């Protein structure tokens, strides 16, 4: 589904991703863990197309297309989704209108006719139930005055509405209490199919108790330094990140 090869990217002369490579196949869940400041969020933003990050080398194939050749909006319409670590508050735009606009543009991109109003509302209802969001949130301004947990649930709701091929969850678990965490994880688990994939970026092992990954990667200084199965997450939890740091200094 996505093949990232030797990706180098940074911001204003400072290189943050230093040769990042990863392959994700349909049906897989990958987790990326690592200490703060190693480039996890830069990876998420770069893949989503935030143009404050400049790609200096490497290539990314997404579903058979050159991802780096596309603007952020086209990547999204092609099926890439980023659940933001800090969802943006947008006064004056309701979640409903936002989703109507996003779905309309995605369907147009794929040559589909606009969704019927009735069908759209039914889809909204179904996905709201999935993440246990009350319908009053839908007419309110997007994320404005939402609590941290509500914002993250809204991200998963949007993910469910847009039905992406690859979802990147950037520290979605940060700032969540245990109930919200369970709702978010439950949403992801229900959306998982053999045709889509997830890349879960997290600092802690906690979320991975609820969303069980097929692969766990440890990121350090802009690239993957260790990969393994779900047991790697437990090992990290036990030993902490110092172990990785030391190991890499030795190398």
């Amino acid at each position: 589904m996505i093949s990232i090869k030797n990706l180098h990217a940074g911001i204003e002369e400072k290189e943050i991703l230093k040769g990042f490579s990863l392959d994700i196949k349909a049906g897989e869940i990958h987790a990326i863990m690592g200490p703060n400041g190693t480039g996890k969020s830069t990876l998420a933003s770069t893949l989503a197309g935030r143009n404050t990050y400049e790609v200096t080398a490497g290539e990314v194939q997404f579903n058979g297309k050159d991802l780096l050749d596309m603007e952020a909006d086209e990547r999204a319409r092609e099926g890439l989704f980023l659940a933001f670590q800090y969802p943006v508050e947008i006064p004056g735009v309701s979640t409903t209108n936002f989703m109507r606009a996003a779905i309309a543009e995605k369907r147009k991109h794929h040559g589909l006719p606009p969704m019927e109003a009735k069908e759209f509302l039914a889809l909204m209802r179904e996905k709201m139930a999935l993440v246990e969001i009350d319908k009053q949130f839908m007419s309110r301004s997007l994320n404005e005055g939402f609590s941290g947990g509500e914002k993250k649930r809204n991200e998963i709701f949007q993910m469910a509405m847009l039905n992406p091929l690859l979802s990147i969850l950037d520290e979605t678990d940060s700032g969540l209490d245990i109930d919200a965490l369970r709702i978010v994880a439950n949403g992801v688990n229900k959306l998982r199919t053999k045709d889509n994939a997830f890349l879960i970026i997290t600092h802690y092992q906690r979320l991975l108790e609820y969303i069980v990954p097929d692969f766990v990667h440890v990121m350090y200084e802009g690239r993957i330094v260790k990969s393994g199965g779900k047991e790697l997450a437990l090992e990290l939890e036990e030993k902490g990140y110092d172990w990785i740091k030391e190991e890499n200094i030795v190398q």
Partner: protein
Amino acid sequence: MNKDIVESSIDNDFETFQANDALAFSDALMQVKRAAFADFTTLNFPSTKNEEWRFTPILAISKGALSVLPVAISANAALKLNAAGKEEFGNKIIFINGHYSASKSNIVDEKGIKISKVIDSIESQEGKFNTLSDNHSEPFSALNTAFFNDGICIEILKNASIEHPIIIENIFTSTANKHFIQQRNMIIAEAGTKASIVFEYTVQANATAYMNILSECFVAENAHIELLHDIQPNHPLHLINNTFAAQKKDSTFTCHSIATDGTLIRNNLSVRLEEKNAICYLNGLYIATDNHLIDNHLAVHHLVPNCQSHQLYKGVLKDKSTGVFNGKIFVHKDAQKTNAYQSNKNLVLSDTAVMHTKPQLEIFADDVKCSHGATVGQLDENAKFYLMARGISQEHATALLTYAFASEVTEKISNTEIKKRLNTQLQTKLGYSFEAL
């Protein structure tokens, strides 16, 4: 040299005007007009050396060799209305090239409203007419007083609550080209009344309109009046729009100045809070494109204690357009417990657009709450990326965010029919429509 030509042409116009028997002004009114003309002769058209007009050159008006005399009325009869496709609702008062057309106007809420030509109501409204207009220092007030010969007086009779909006539409045909039309209105809201009044402008294809409109609004005790200046002419309009309001106790005056089109728009809005517990809400939205200029000059006079004024003005400047905001708040020395708020926020969406914003607070009382703030900036890049990360194109993300910014003002309009129409027009203007999805 040009200045001399303009002056002599205005002088000649006034001679012609005075000599026109058909206009039949009373002696008393003629006296007022002569005094106003003398004021204008002293003030003259303001140049950009005048602080109040520093950023607003009016050469198209002052050096445009325009006649301030009325347009010949003969051409109006054949005019077809609805040419602009505006929805028909509410009470309609139609002016064609500055002339009131009783036959094309339609009042549906007959109970509670009295409509008359302003010239016919001056005597009965003595003590009101020309008491708010500032002819000594405002050149366009003086010019208007000297040269108006038509306009409407709307009386909202005691305790009447008018269901439908009262819409005053000024239509300009190509016949009006080269005329600087002077229109004078009065709005008299008696005690305990409630009404929405809308001023609209339609400039027909091939026409260029120039207008100097002056409206004096008297808001009596416990009256609640909403005024909307809906300026979307679609064809070139040079408009000097002077609104003066005076409020008595427990009254509310809400004024929305919405301009999304027009070559040169200058809104002069002045509100006097004359008795306690009067509140005014002054909202403005301007969206300027091309090389157009939209200027809002406001003055709020807090004359007595316990009054409130709230100003929210938002602007979007594109292309080579210019925006001007000047908000004066005067808190007189007796006006304790005043609550005055002013906010002016601007989006400048091109490198060649300019915004001049200036708050001006003069406070002579000591126990007051006054705050003001002004911002000039671009769209939030984070918000734009968030929308794009959901598949919304950059163009639509910009339009959507601009609409979200601008609709904060239109959402304040209380009449739902008008609000809906304005929001739809706004979406069209910004190239984005939720309805079309």
